[in-house]
């Protein structure tokens, strides 16, 4: 496998043809995606045309951009003009948007080549990609296990070597958790850092697009390409985009790193070296976070301390209520966002005697079980007589989360926690909704606050499966977050390659 950096610099220098690079990756997809099912659609023809255009540009002495010839996979909830955008739902099967998402435009403008659209939990609602209407994606590290979700297809595509880069969306952890389970890097940027225009909405005040990559440097490269103000998204932040890659080599000396107490209760409980103390009142320690995972987080903290960071423990009490608040607000927004799938303008229609019946039958047939459950949950949370007790209260918890993070960031530059409470689990193992929802315990708080967070592979846990450590930072704090992530990557024990990559690799020696 080759990194996005290596491909782009080779293609720009004329040392490799984008078309050859593409064929290598298409070959891997051809060989292995039958097992993995990372893709809903492989856009081979369109990709060949795009790669040829990149090659032509190079031939003419033009620079195709920082992602010249880099194949990229887009989660199938990102609008791509004329290319099916399904959200892995029967409801939108075959729907071809008349426009590209802003991030799709940005990646293409930077020279990236769309190689396909990746599988997800239907409308991004899930943590395992088991809720796709088109069948689950398998974890390249163990085909009997889930890749995480909802961006499981994008994570698996990068982990399996089908594309050096992929984009996903993260509403409650949907980039970071699958990145963790697949042993790769995944970033959820600050809410508003990356335009949401063209991302099919799940929960608008949480949704944020971000990159997957095999290493921190590639992820930072992609993040730089998709970041920036977009006048088409009112929640887009009008802030300059820093040079993210410059942050990678800065070193962690002097950085203050806080390990979130509530999310690292089991396993080793001792304070790490030389912390500036505990911020805030100690909250209850959440159980359900596996010891092997917590242990890796403490090792990561130690590694940062060894590299010169100041490490301490920090309490962020509101994270213990995050899951509950999230599972009221996000479905509430989703119930409204998904009302438009009514059989009138696009997507599925099941005919009825009148419009109302057509709506009901269409939505019955078009949505899967989990989507229906969340729409109804959200409808209930907003309905007359329940708004204050559910939606209203959850929004106040959201403010508490904001305040608790603000307090923590008064003492620390970045925070650490597990990304996922567990390593990749087997299909069907978390069928109960609350059990599944708990996969998001550690990732949800950053969606409530809107702050950036990312997952970096750091060793293995039970049964040799990858463990991800989550690095959290305050709003627009992607630079210190990436600095710490790069330091962790340097200190991480080597990760066994997914078994797939030991099968004949057409990119080898290319």
């Amino acid at each position, binding site marked *: 496998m080759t990194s996005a950096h290596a491909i782009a610099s080779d293609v720009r220098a004329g040392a490799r043809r984008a078309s050859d690079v593409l064929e290598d990756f298409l070959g891997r997809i051809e060989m292995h995606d039958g097992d993995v099912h990372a893709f809903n659609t492989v856009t081979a023809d369109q990709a060949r045309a795009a790669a040829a255009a990149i090659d032509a540009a190079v031939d003419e002495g033009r620079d195709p951009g920082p992602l010249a010839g880099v194949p990229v996979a887009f989660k199938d909830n990102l609008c791509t003009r004329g290319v099916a955008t399904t959200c892995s739902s029967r409801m939108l099967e075959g729907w071809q948007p008349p426009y590209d998402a802003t991030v799709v435009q940005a990646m293409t403008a930077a020279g990236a080549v769309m190689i396909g659209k990746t599988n997800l939990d239907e409308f991004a609602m899930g943590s395992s990609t088991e809720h796709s209407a088109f069948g689950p994606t398998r974890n390249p590290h163990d085909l009997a296990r889930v890749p995480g979700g909802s961006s499981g297809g994008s994570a698996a595509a990068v982990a399996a070597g089908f594309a050096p880069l992929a984009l996903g969306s993260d509403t409650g952890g949907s980039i970071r958790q699958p990145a963790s389970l697949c042993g790769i890097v995944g970033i959820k940027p600050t809410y508003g850092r990356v335009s949401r225009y063209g991302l099919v909405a799940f929960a608008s005040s949480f949704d944020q697009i971000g990159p997957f990559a095999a290493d921190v440097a590639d992820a930072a490269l992609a993040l730089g390409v998709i970041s920036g103000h977009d006048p088409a998204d009112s929640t887009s932040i009008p802030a300059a985009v820093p040079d993210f890659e410059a942050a990678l080599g800065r070193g962690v000396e002097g950085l203050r790193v806080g390990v979130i107490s509530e999310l690292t209760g089991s396993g080793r409980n001792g304070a790490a070296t030389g912390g500036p103390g505990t911020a805030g009142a100690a909250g209850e320690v959440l159980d359900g976070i596996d010891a092997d995972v917590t242990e890796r987080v403490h090792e990561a903290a130690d590694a940062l301390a060894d590299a010169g960071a100041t490490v301490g423990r920090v309490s962020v009490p509101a994270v213990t209520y995050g899951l509950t608040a999230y599972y009221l607000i996000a479905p509430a927004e989703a119930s409204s966002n998904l009302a438009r799938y009514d059989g009138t303008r696009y997507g599925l229609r099941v*005919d009825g005697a009148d419009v109302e019946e057509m709506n009901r039958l269409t*939505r*019955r047939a078009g949505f899967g079980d989990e989507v229906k459950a969340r729409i109804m*949950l959200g409808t209930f949370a907003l309905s007359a007589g329940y708004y204050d007790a559910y939606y209203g209260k*959850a929004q106040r918890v959201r403010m508490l989360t904001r305040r608790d993070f603000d307090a923590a960031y008064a003492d620390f530059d970045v925070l650490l926690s597990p990304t996922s409470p567990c390593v990749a689990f087997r299909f069907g193992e978390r069928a109960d909704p609350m059990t599944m929802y708990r996969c998001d315990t550690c990732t949800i708080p950053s969606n409530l606050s809107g*702050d950036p967070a990312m997952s970096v592979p750091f060793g293995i846990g039970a049964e040799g499966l990858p463990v991800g450590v989550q690095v959290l930072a305050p709003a627009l704090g992607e630079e210190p977050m990436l600095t710490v992530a790069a330091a962790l990557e340097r200190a991480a024990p080597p990760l066994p390659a997914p078994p797939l990559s030991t099968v004949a690799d057409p990119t080898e020696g290319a």
Partner: protein
Amino acid sequence: MGDGTAISSEQVAHVARLARIELTPDEIEHYTGHLGRVLEHAGELEDLDLADVPPLAHPYPLSNVFRDDVAGSPVDRDEVLSQAPAASGGQFEVPPVLGEEA
């Protein structure tokens, strides 16, 4: 809340009507259980004193975001209608609309 009866099957049926999702009686029972387990969990918020905590709707504090009143180009009608379940004469076609006079 918190006693396992956070939502009744009648409430689920009502919510399904509001959300325009056709459900069988069996499905109503299924979702009563599903929603009940989540709402039961929400009972933990009951004990929180949030009287002095204002609600937070937006994760990043922006205000006054506008566009100028300048027309852009519309989408291609044929491209859009080609994706519609039914269209006629440049319009989207639906079954009869009952209820309120338009």
